[in-house]
């Protein structure tokens, strides 16, 4: 089990260096203890106080047992990652205390129940306090269900965090939805008891935050992707269950009737991608999502969408690879596969959002690009983005009207050329059901009318030329796509001593690391590449060449974005911080690496 640690030799901690009023609470136990529920209620209570929240859910690929923990970080200022050390730890078992105590901030508090395990003062790091809360005794007041201990401990944790009891109890009550009754009442009662116990017994409460404004929406990256798809006009969503993409399916299925979206669980990912293409061919906006293993099965279908010029949005939520790899851990190791998916060359784009707001925006954009350019568009997520929760500002996720169809046609009785040569490479697109425009979409090479030329090609000059022209037509779309999506941008001062280069969810921890460095007087900036492919090199190259030093930060073994940048620009980013242990980047370790690069790097 790897948890955020203080990098060796790094002198500052988040709490001492960072003036912003923020708090990090962590709760841990065994799978089945209800840790995710406790974390969700704490995180949601903090977002209801108007704070910016980031919540990390760390679990193992088991349903019962194992070690599970949840970290909710909240701040009055925008935050972009789970942060580093914790201020309050609620440990449901001794293992949790042992694993997480070394990563507590100075002045932090651990909440535990001595009836469950002993915790000697000598086991506590210097500066960490303990608060013994009789969670089991409180639970017994209400029921024989020991799971109520969670509610009691959550109450004590909430008090230490500064969450008003009324906010906590309302959030808890809402979390039971329509399933009110005894169980909800018991939980609310036990949480109140734990809260008041802490209020009476905890002494000075150093880390409490205060409500600052209106509640903020709190969502996972996957929820944001699903919401973005619905906003863009998605009418058909199809998937096969695979962590960490499955929660998109869950959200879509739960909202299918309300939103009028046909949601299908298919027999495998090959069926998934073909169904999505079929639905799109027939005229609806369609999307499918999976992780690396499922994406590998979709590869041939994605190529068919490219060849038949059918719009398609595919979400690839990466997890640790290779093969089955790390099902519940994060990685950015599938970029090469997304780039190379499919035989031959065809146009595609890969968008990589870094947080739920962008996940929403880029999913809407992906539908627009797919529709405009009639080709597959990939939204690259990963476990860390897909499953972490984060607050969004409503203004950042405007609901557009449904994505309009471009390049439609109506018959005038003349010949229709579905794949007509055009300057942009995009041809007028008819939909089945339109009279007089019947055409064939073919996965074989074809001419402007969609007639196969693959079978008659063998050296016949007219068809040889036709094949090359049709390839050129399709690939012209790639040039259009280069700047049609979100282009590279520079965050932070232009004249910085170091430029980070990052993509996807890693961007969040880099942003927080930049702030840590700034607090130490080190000015850095971030070269952000939101559309990883095709790369807008004309914009990117000046950013990279003006940086005195660069540091590539990627969650994979080989530096796949670095390879792509080198291939596209010729620029070799030699300072690399690559992480492939399954854990998300933490701000402090990135800041530490940046300091090392500034002293010794290329």
């Amino acid at each position, binding site marked *: 089990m790897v948890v955020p640690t203080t990098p060796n030799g790094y002198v500052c901690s988040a709490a001492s260096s960072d003036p912003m009023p923020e708090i990090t609470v962590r709760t841990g136990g065994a799978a089945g203890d209800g840790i995710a529920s406790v974390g969700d209620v704490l995180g949601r209570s903090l977002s209801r106080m108007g704070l910016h929240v980031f919540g990390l859910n760390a679990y193992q690929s088991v349903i019962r047992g194992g070690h599970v923990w949840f970290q909710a970080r909240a701040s009055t200022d925008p935050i972009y990652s789970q942060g580093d050390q914790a201020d309050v730890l609620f440990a449901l078992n001794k293992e949790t205390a042992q694993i997480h105590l070394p990563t507590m901030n100075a002045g932090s508090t651990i909440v535990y129940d001595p009836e469950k395990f002993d915790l000697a003062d000598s086991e506590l790091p210097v500066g960490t306090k303990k608060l013994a809360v009789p969670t089991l005794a409180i639970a017994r007041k209400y029921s024989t269900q020991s799971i109520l201990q969670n509610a009691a401990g959550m109450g004590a944790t909430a008090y230490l965090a500064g969450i008003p009891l009324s906010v906590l109890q309302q959030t808890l009550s809402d979390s039971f939805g329509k399933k009110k009754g005894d169980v909800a009442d018991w939980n609310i009662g036990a949480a109140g008891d734990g809260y008041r116990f802490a209020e009476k017994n905890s002494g000075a409460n150093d880390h409490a935050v205060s409500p600052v404004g209106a509640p903020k929406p709190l969502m996972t990256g996957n929820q944001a992707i699903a919401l973005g798809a619905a906003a863009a006009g998605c*009418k058909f969503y199809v998937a096969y269950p695979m962590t960490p993409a499955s929660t998109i399916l869950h959200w879509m299925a739960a909202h299918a009737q309300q939103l009028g979206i*046909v949601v299908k669980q298919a*027999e495998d990912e090959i069926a998934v991608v073909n169904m999505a*293409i079929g*639905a799109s061919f027939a005229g609806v906006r369609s999307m499918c999502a999976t992780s690396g293993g499922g994406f590998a099965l979709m590869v041939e279908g994605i190529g068919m969408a490219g060849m038949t010029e059918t719009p398609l949005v595919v979400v690839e939520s990466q997890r640790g690879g290779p093969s089955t790899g790390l099902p519940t851990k994060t990685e950015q190791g599938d970029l090469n596969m997304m780039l190379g998916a499919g035989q031959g060359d065809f146009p595609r784009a890969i968008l990589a959002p870094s947080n739920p707001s962008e996940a929403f925006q880029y999913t809407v954009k992906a539908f627009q690009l797919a529709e405009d350019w009639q080709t597959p568009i990939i939204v690259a997520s990963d476990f860390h983005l897909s499953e972490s929760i984060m607050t969004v500002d409503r203004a950042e996720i405007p609901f557009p009207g*449904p994505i309009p169809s471009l390049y439609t046609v109506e018959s005038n009785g*003349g*010949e229709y050329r579905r794949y007509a040569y055009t300057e942009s490479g995009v041809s007028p697109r008819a939909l*089945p059901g339109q009279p007089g425009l*019947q055409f064939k979409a073919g996965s074989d090479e074809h001419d402007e009318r969609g007639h196969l030329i693959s079978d008659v090609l063998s050296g016949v000059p007219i068809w040889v030329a036709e094949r090359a022209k049709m390839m050129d037509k399709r690939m012209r779309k790639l040039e259009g796509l280069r700047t049609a999506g979100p282009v590279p941008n520079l965050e932070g001062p232009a004249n910085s001593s170091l430029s980070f280069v990052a993509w996807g969810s890693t961007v969040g921890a880099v942003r927080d690391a930049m702030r840590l460095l700034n607090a130490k007087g080190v000015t850095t900036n971030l070269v952000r590449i939101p559309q990883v492919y095709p790369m807008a090199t004309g914009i990117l190259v000046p950013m990279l060449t003006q940086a005195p030093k660069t540091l590539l930060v990627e969650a994979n073994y080989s530096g796949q974005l670095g390879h792509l940048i080198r291939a596209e620009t010729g620029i070799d980013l030699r300072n690399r911080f690559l992480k492939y242990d399954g854990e998300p980047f933490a701000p402090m370790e990135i800041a530490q690496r940046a300091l090392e690069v500034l002293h010794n790097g290329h």
Partner: protein
Amino acid sequence: MVTSAVPATGTTSLPVLVSKSDTKPTWCPGCGDFGVIAALEMALKRLKIPPHETVFVSGIGCSSNLPHFLNTYGFHGIHGRALPLAEGIRWANHGLHVIVTGGDGDGFGIGAGHFVHAMRRNVKITYVTMDNEIYGLTTGQASPTSTMGAKTKSTPAGVIEHPINPIALALASGATYVARGFSGDVKQMADLIAGALQHEGFAFVDAFSPCVTYNKLNTFDWFRQRVYKLESAGHDPSDITKAFARAQEWGDKIPTGLFYKTDRPTYEDLEEVLQAGPAVKQPCGLVGKESILDEFL
């Protein structure tokens, strides 16, 4: 939004009936697939199904080229994946007539998984397989329906696997219309396909369609000597047990005709969202549904 009109190159009246397209079939002279396309055209004409409301979907193989040869919409997809492609088309627009054509390798080999699932869903699709017991386009390898002992390029010592029984597999998987035709009897096949097109559910027509180039065993003559019609044998197509029994017949006597037909709600009947009409004609997006954000508070 219409942004581009089709350049006129002549004025012709829109076809109202399905007929051949201007692409000539690439099949070998004498190929069984000619009988199947003739039966398809006959059935579609008889039912006056308009070509623009018809989509032929196929995978890869000699028979999968069929969509190109008719004046309907068509999607010539990838090997073995025609059925999920067709299902997606149906769920986007169930106002369309969706017909899937392909071979035994495409449907019962690489595509076998999709075959089973499409049938249990009872999607309203007509699936016509041109079953020639051989891989033709790849020049003569064994197929999932090749006879035990058949010598092919990939099995020079003879096939040592038991062949798939497409009719029995369809019955076991929940297909609601299961029939077998033979290219040597176009009229019977047209009747079976017309019945399939009118059937509310997944309709499977396995068509013996001899390969005159690579299968020297299961020839037109071989089938002619063996086939008999179920209706003339007094078969009751509403009885699935008897249908299973007939499906086991092979060798000297091989039945053709309608094995089984039953009524069961289609997937489209049971999918709540589609009760408001074809998805492609429904509103979409979240404008006016902003309150959905409240669930994230």
